[in-house]
């Protein structure tokens, strides 16, 4: 997946986790926690959704890499480069 495809995939995951959230004007550089009030349970869900969909394992120590859209995409790029877009 390219960085843009990964971003779409994360958006899709956020839509599933927080269906009432308006994601159209999300700021990629701002923490999810601050703009969407995601809590630790929601971050676990991002990790679990990635595992469910793409068999990617993310160790707990790396959860902090998922703070914002920019950091998430950057962190996932090497892990997802060989995954074909569904």
């Amino acid at each position, binding site marked *: 997946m390219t960085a843009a495809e990964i971003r779409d995939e994360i958006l899709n995951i956020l839509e599933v986790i927080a269906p009432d959230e308006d994601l159209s004007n999300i700021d990629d550089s701002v923490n999810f926690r601050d703009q969407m009030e995601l809590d630790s349970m929601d971050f*676990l869900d991002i990790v*679990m959704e990635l595992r469910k969909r793409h068999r990617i394992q993310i160790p707990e120590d790396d959860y902090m890499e998922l703070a914002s859209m920019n950091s998430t995409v950057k962190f996932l790029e090497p892990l997802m480069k060989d995954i074909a877009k569904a």
Partner: protein
Amino acid sequence: MYDTIIIGAGMSGLAAGIRLAYFDQRVLVLERHFTIGGLNSFYRLRGRDYDVGLHALTNITPKGTKKGPLARLLRQLRISWDDLQISPQVGSDIVFPGTRLRFDNDLDLFRSEVSREFPKQSDNFDRLISEIVEYDDLDDSHQEISARQRLGEILTDPKLVEMLFCPLMFYGSAREHDMDWGQFSIMFRSIFMEGLGRPHAGVRLILKQLVRQYRGLGGELKLRAGVERLAVEDGKVVGVVLENGEELTARRVLSSAGWPETMRMCDDGAPVVSRQPGRLSFCETIASLDVEPKTLGHRSTITFYNDSEEFTWTKPDTPCDLRSGVICSPNNFQYGKPLDDGTIRITALANFDYWRGLDEHDYRLEKLRWYDRITESAVRFVPDYRSRVIDTDMFTPTTIVRFTGHDNGAVYGTPEKQIDGRTHLDNLFICGTDQGFVGIVGSIMSGIGMANMHCLRD
């Protein structure tokens, strides 16, 4: 081989099941009773629907609220706010001799009521609220602090203290005489700062949504499947043996059966860590009326009453404690359409040993006798509805045992909670009442929390 076997198809077990099934685990929920729900169940009698347990859901925040347990729960279970069809309460009150404090889902009403009835406590009450707001429910280090002590430092009128304890203890204290400060804060927020609500169809609507979601994700559910024991080998659970002799294997077990109840199931011979079982149980009378309660002038959703200045929260010496109680009218929520019948339910503390000791004949007679006494006690605080009753039912501590399997019919389980859900075995965990959260929203959060913490991350 199951990834996870969950004991108990109550709110916590089903919620945990949804989490695990959603993330592709092979999950089985085992329920001893012939129906789901545990403490929060429902039944049909003489053509009428009844709820067990649920008076109202706590933690009710409006649609779109992002913070708080209800919002968190809906996200975690992938259920939308509209699925639960919750209507907010009309308004409730706490009544002591000479003093009535009304509250609804807007804290300002309660605040102004306290100021009016206890003018000198107004500032102290605001201070209490700000302390409660600051309490971090994910930090369990405050669990051990006595709420009586903490309140005594903030409020100087003992009657107000008693009037705050009355509803919070009735809705969730497993401990007698006192609560943990943490538990007090969580419950204060859930009842006074968030609020009360109920689906028009009652608890069955919530349970049906949970089961539909669970089954839709491939989760398995077996009713009339009581667990006889947990098979333990080398410090690990390897499976369960059902009462019918069937053996099932699992990589881990999550039990909502209660702490002492779960410990007894382990067949490893390890001494059960002594932990006081709960002693607080209830009787509840249920009256169906031929009119809506509001026609009789009863508009309150929940009325918590106590007939003296001091509120006593302990196992009564008498079969039921007639001094205090909770009067709930399921009609008095802001529904789009009225319920079929008028209903008034009264909950009072009860003595489990007394009720268990009766033979069938006496049990039936005593139910009638105490139905009358509880009702007589309650109509001191609400309009007398007795001439409009068309049907009645009553449950006792032994009914609670039948639905929950809890020792002593202990509604809120053991006084000492296992907040981290761990046991002496690596892959056996507990959730539900004895993990530490009560109420419907609390139990569901317990199931979610324990599933997330112990069952998802490997």
